[in-house]
């Protein structure tokens, strides 16, 4: 695998959330990907099973995990660190910078609970390698509140009860923040379209859309 490819062009994120062929895949990405693909093909999904492996990591290799020195800004704070090449951005944030606000609902680009902003664009941090964030600015849900002031969107989420279990909320907030930065007076349809990649199994969709609209001043009372 050509691990250098992603380092050379860190700003070229793949359009889709599927791991790119040739890019460095973590074992989990590999397994999840093959499991899903093989399942559709009607062949035994792999489910982490040790049969007919193609890329077994020998024990001695597991110790020497390649790392890359990266520099990135998270919620305005600059971080320089040696990231393991296999870390996702979500792992970097949650496990190594101790920002646990973004959540892992699926770790495979289906649910959007891990959404953060990368240079202002909403991305799935579960499907973005940490090294791809080199030189870039990340904003997480923890970075919305400034000096004890919630954003109007956060306040609207409170007032309109837009969080039920709250697990998808960080992702909904980040995608909606990015959308509002582009379009300060969206219609309900535009909000739904923008947030389509953020699932809410509590299915609190009505309240989320109402909250986003209310934060722009165009929504009614709760």
């Amino acid at each position, binding site marked *: 695998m050509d691990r250098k490819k992603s380092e050379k062009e860190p700003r070229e994120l793949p359009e889709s959330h599927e791991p790119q062929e040739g890019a460095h895949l*973590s*074992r*989990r990405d590999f*397994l*999840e990907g093959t*499991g*899903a693909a093989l*399942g559709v093909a*009607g*062949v035994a*999904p792999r*489910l*982490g*099973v*040790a049969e007919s492996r193609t890329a077994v*990591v020998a*024990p*001695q290799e*597991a110790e020497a*995990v390649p790392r890359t020195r990266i520099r990135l800004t998270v919620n305005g704070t600059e971080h320089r660190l040696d990231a*393991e090449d296999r870390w996702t951005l979500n792992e970097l944030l*949650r496990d190594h910078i101790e920002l*646990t*606000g973004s*959540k*892992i*609902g*699926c770790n*495979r680009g289906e*649910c959007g*609970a891990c959404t953060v902003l990368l240079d202002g664009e909403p991305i799935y941090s579960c499907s973005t390698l940490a090294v791809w964030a080199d030189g870039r600015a990340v904003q*997480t*849900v923890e970075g919305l509140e400034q000096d004890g002031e*919630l954003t109007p969107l*956060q306040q609207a*989420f*409170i007032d*309109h*009860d837009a*969080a*039920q*279990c*709250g*697990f*998808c*909320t*960080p992702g909904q907030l980040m995608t909606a923040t990015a959308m509002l930065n582009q379009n300060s007076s969206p219609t309900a349809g535009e*909000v*739904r*379209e923008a947030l*389509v990649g*953020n*699932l809410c*199994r*509590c*299915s609190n*969709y*009505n309240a*989320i859309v109402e909250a986003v609209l209310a934060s722009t001043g165009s929504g009614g009372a*709760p």
Partner: protein
Amino acid sequence: MSQEQASRPLEAMNTVGRNVPRIDAYERVTGKATYTRDVRLPGMLYARILRSPHPHARIRSIDISRAEALPGVRSVVTHETHQLIYSSGSVAGGRQYNDAAKDITTHLRYMFDNPVRYVGQPVAAVAAVDRHVAEEALQLIDIDYEELPFVIDAERALESGAALVWPEGNLALDYQNQARPMVRRVGDVSAGLQAADRVFEDRYTTAFVQDGQMEPRSALAEWHGDKVTIHTPTQGISNCRHDNARDLGLEDHQVQIVCKYMGGGFGDKNGSYYFDLIAATLAKEADAPVLLELTRKDDWLGTHGRWHTIQDFKVGVKQDGTVTAIQMHGYSGMGPYLRRSGGISGIEVYACPNTERIIYPVHTNRMVSGNFRAPSDPQGFFAMQSMMDDIAYKLGVDPVDFAKQNMLRPTEDVRFTNYTMEECIERGAQLFDWQGRRRPEPGSDPGPVKRGAGMSFMMFRSGVGPSSAILRVDSEQRYTLFVGVTDIGPGAKTTMALIAAEELGVPLSQVEVVWGDTDRCPYSVGESGSRTTTQTGYAVVQAAIDLKEQIAEAGVPTGDEVLIASATPTPSTQGRRRMCFGAHFVEVETDVRLGHVRISKYVAVHESGRILNPLPARDQIRGAALQGIGQALHEDLLYDARNGHPLTAGYYGARHLTHMDAPEIEVTFIETDDGFGPYGAKTVGEAGIILGPAAVANAIFNAIGHRMRDLPITRDKILEALS
């Protein structure tokens, strides 16, 4: 109040009945809410589970030596190293804490079983210094499987010659260890069918629906000597503690369960499973805290969802529209382990004097079925009320009139604490404009986009029962409420605080809630069965009454003094049924060229007693109704019958609703106070999911003139029906 006394609007009380933001809303919108995987302990290891790739196989050998040799691996456990039984191996949910069942059942549920009976069943687990090493170690476990015959179809599983999931046969054992169907007979169904002028027969089927809560299961276990602390998303910390203690061979006080925030439950997280045991076992072996994380696919296949059903009906009707007999013979696909009864409800809401319901809970080599929000109901109501809707049209009767003619009403024998079924239906019909939107002639729109309207109605238990609360006041007049609730989404913590503030007559800001920790909180019934508000909430009322009396007697505490009150009330309705009521009205637009269904109007009317906090109550109904629409139109777990493999595990595959799929749900509450529960509050959480599938299916029939009898009603099925 008399049973049918008309309800009137209730005045808001001081705190209760007004829209109050959740007391933890700030934490939820800033990323500060601490879910299980957000907890970090020093020296914590990460664990992963290896799962069966076969629907049915015996493990001939399992070799963990290569995995154990991988640097960074601290512990590997398999069925050869640990034979723990989870949920104590009892046979049926609802009795899952029944110790006697453990002694008699032959279907024990092992943490790691051999043989494995479904794709996704755990066979081993690894704890390592990080999750990548743990994942790599899974690849180094060598297993020799002997593949066994398997069965996927629930009906076929009962035919002779079917592959056996268990040696005793594929009909599930009941709690007395007997292989027999669940039978409920009222009156004489044969006589009722003979007395009918017309008899209608049909088969309906419903698909498996995965709860699919956003937070996958995980468990973080840490031992302190012979005590273990388990951080785990559970819908009931008290029951979870008791179950884990028994399964680990400990006393209750040796287990501490902590669950502060939880990313949804819907029944997926009630009842204990193997996760907590695996984390505790690995932590013991590795002598370090262990965080076990389930992947989404692990969670999808390794937990449970709503049981799929096959339902055969015979309904007898007089010429005047009176239903004289209802017979339903059903199959519930339970997977290889019985986590819940497999019940199918729906007949009970009719006054029909002759009914027979026979349900076969069947074992297959699919994944396990279990609780999902109103476990027995949406699938049963879909079939029963599709059947009745069909009969109404065949008799040329308005389905609303047919429902009102045949629904269960209060009698001297059937007593309710109050009854608002008719009021819910009439209010819904009016708000929806039933007369204007329904097509008297189904499928009569010229098309290609045809509109139609459908409705359904329900009553659902809203029982009373025991739970506990402790309330303390200090000299600063700070009130601390200790309740063993977790907050899975409906806002239990806030509701408990509201009730305390109301009863104490103090501002909400003076009440602090201690929750989600068995070392700090008394018993609570748990966030399942829609019982927290009615049962734990009632305990809060009683504790507050006690504390007020203490304050009246002894005065407000001074200095370091505190006053403490506790309550464990055991209320009773003295034989009366306490139910919540609801009616849903749906209009759809069906594009007959594409088979596409769009919900163009959805009205939900509910009577759930007094509504304590209107905003989250409304959103319980809206969210549940949308989940019902998902069940009606999208969700399924398809299996390849040739190899026993699941094909649509995950959100994309199952097509759970997105923002783009979600119509606006219009919710109206009819408020009452029947004198039970906290200020007359009844259940809300499960009620909203029951009616969607039936109402949507009936609306589709009204739009296209073809009865859709199999959930989910996907485009291909509609196009096939129309072709």
